[in-house]
């Protein structure tokens, strides 16, 4: 049927080809281009073998696993509290979210509820992490489209976020922040001061960054309709987070299944319409503003109270107690040796990570280590849609799509 219809609309050239026994369309001569694993635009590490017709991508075969580190296997051999440093290294752009998502999972297993203050501190830290994640993603999008400078402007702000992390936990990137049962220390006056300053300074910088790119026609042309994906396909691919929201689905774990007192805060879920690169850029931009709003609320209404749960079986006693108190010393030894009495069971807990629903599926057989810990890593899940998203586009589009997806290799490969 279709072929007959087509026949009627043959152009002269096609008629000529048909008459002379030639193929209706000239087969394009494809070039194979190896994008990665050391290509500058692959940031982390993955390989794409592209079939190109000139500058147009006809097909792509992705290869991943170049930094597969066997997180899930390590997690089966380490006591619960030693897994936190592993989660740091999954999505290293927003480690605190990973840390705290994991902590919440274990707390769910152990049945601990943590005080409001600790929850609020967690919210502040997680939102800061989200900001720094989106900062990197959006500014890298700028770098890959050729505008390097905006990246360095927002990078300075990221340093300020790192200063806050440093004040809270003592590290910049791989934070190992918080403990099972709360935070490791209360917010110091300096940390509060830094957060306050950040809230004052950051909006200006971010507005400036937006001004540099958002309405620049070169940038709009580069990103509009590039790497678009429909909501149906995105859901089928298991997209979550900003990439799903860019297609117009307002799914956000923070709203759907509030954790850590997210129900206390007023914020909106930015959604896009077409799911293209420009939408993803705008959604992330807007999410940064929303995160700022959340931090502001949490900072203003920070409740009094303890920064950790009263759970002596799981939360390390304060050092001073250990020196003096025999009971505390015993708990201390038991916790460090990993001999806590984890109940048998399985839990799934998910948080809204920088890139989407970051889920932890934990099976415990009552031993000192998790029996099985599976990470639902958003990057792993949506990177497989990349092939579909870049087909028919150009090489330059593929690179921008990759940046705007914000695929973090550490999370992708686990």
């Amino acid at each position: 049927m279709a072929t007959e219809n087509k026949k009627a609309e043959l152009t002269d050239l096609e008629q000529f080809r048909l008459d002379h026994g030639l193929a209706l369309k000239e087969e394009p001569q494809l070039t194979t281009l190896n994008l990665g694993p050391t290509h500058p635009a692959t940031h982390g590490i993955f390989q794409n073998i592209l079939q190109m017709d000139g500058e147009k991508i006809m097909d792509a075969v992705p290869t991943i696993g170049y930094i597969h580190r066997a997180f899930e296997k390590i997690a089966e051999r380490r006591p619960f509290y030693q897994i936190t440093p592993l989660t740091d290294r999954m999505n290293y752009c927003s480690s605190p979210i990973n840390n705290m998502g994991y902590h919440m999972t274990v707390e769910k297993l152990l049945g601990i509820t943590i005080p409001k203050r600790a929850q609020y501190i967690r919210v502040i830290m997680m939102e800061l992490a989200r900001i720094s994640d989106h900062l990197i993603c959006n500014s890298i999008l700028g770098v890959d489209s050729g505008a390097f400078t905006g990246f360095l402007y927002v990078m300075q702000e990221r340093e300020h976020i790192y200063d806050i992390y440093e004040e809270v936990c003592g590290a910049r990137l791989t934070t190992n922040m918080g403990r099972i049962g709360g935070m490791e220390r209360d917010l110091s006056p300096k940390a509060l001061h830094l957060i306050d300053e950040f809230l004052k300074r950051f909006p200006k910088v971010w507005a400036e960054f937006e001004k540099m790119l958002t309405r620049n026609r070169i940038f709009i042309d580069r990103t509009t309709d590039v790497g678009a994906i429909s909501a149906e396909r995105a859901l089928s691919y298991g997209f979550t987070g900003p990439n799903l929201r860019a297609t117009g689905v307002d799914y956000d774990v923070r709203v759907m299944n509030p954790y850590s007192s997210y129900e206390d805060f007023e914020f909106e879920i930015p959604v896009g319409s077409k799911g293209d690169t420009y939408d993803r850029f705008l959604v992330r931009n807007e999410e940064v503003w929303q995160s700022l709003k959340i931090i502001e609320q949490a900072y203003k209404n920070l409740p009094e109270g303890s920064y950790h749960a009263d759970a002596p079986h799981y939360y390390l006693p304060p050092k001073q107690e250990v020196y003096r108190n025999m009971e505390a010393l015993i708990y201390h030894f038991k916790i460090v040796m990993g001999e806590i009495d984890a109940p048998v069971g399985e839990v799934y807990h998910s948080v809204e990570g920088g890139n989407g629903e970051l889920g932890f599926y934990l099976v415990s057989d009552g031993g000192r280590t998790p029996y099985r810990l599976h990470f639902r890593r958003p990057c792993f899940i949506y990177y497989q849609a990349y092939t579909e998203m870049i087909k028919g586009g150009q090489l330059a589009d593929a690179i921008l799509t990759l940046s705007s997806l914000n695929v973090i290799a550490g999370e992708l490969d686990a």
Partner: protein
Amino acid sequence: MTENLFYFLTSLTLLSALMVVISKNPVHSVLFLIITFFTISGHYILLNAQFLAAVNIIVYAGAIMVLFLFVIMFLNMGKNAENAVKTSVISKIAGTLAGGLLFVVMIAALKDAAIVGYNPETYNSQVGMVENLGKVLFTQYLLPFELASVLFLVAMVGAVMLGKKETGEQHF
């Protein structure tokens, strides 16, 4: 001095023109063709026709040959075209015959043609300058000039028509 330069340029022209035909690699052919254009521009300069020399370089070497090279590089992208072309013995013989015949025809045609020289005394050395060229073009040769421009326009329209893809397909 000028004479030596002339002979040097001429031999270079012939040599590179020959290499255009002989070279197996099409890219090398194109590069030799560019050298040929250069030497021809050199001849123009010797004739004090700097405008022609510059235009020759801009149009031929700077634009047309770049396109040639462009196309050849594009087609060459996959594999080496050198081995792809196989000439059979018959085609070689046919080629030789055709070339020889052309040569005979040219000799026959040029045998009686008179070579018009210029008298050094009355020759105006400024004849190749832009102003003179422009004057001649827009007075004496106005009709051919305008016809040529129409021809170019037609060619351009044709190229656009041919180059236009079917609707819906985006290429580049």
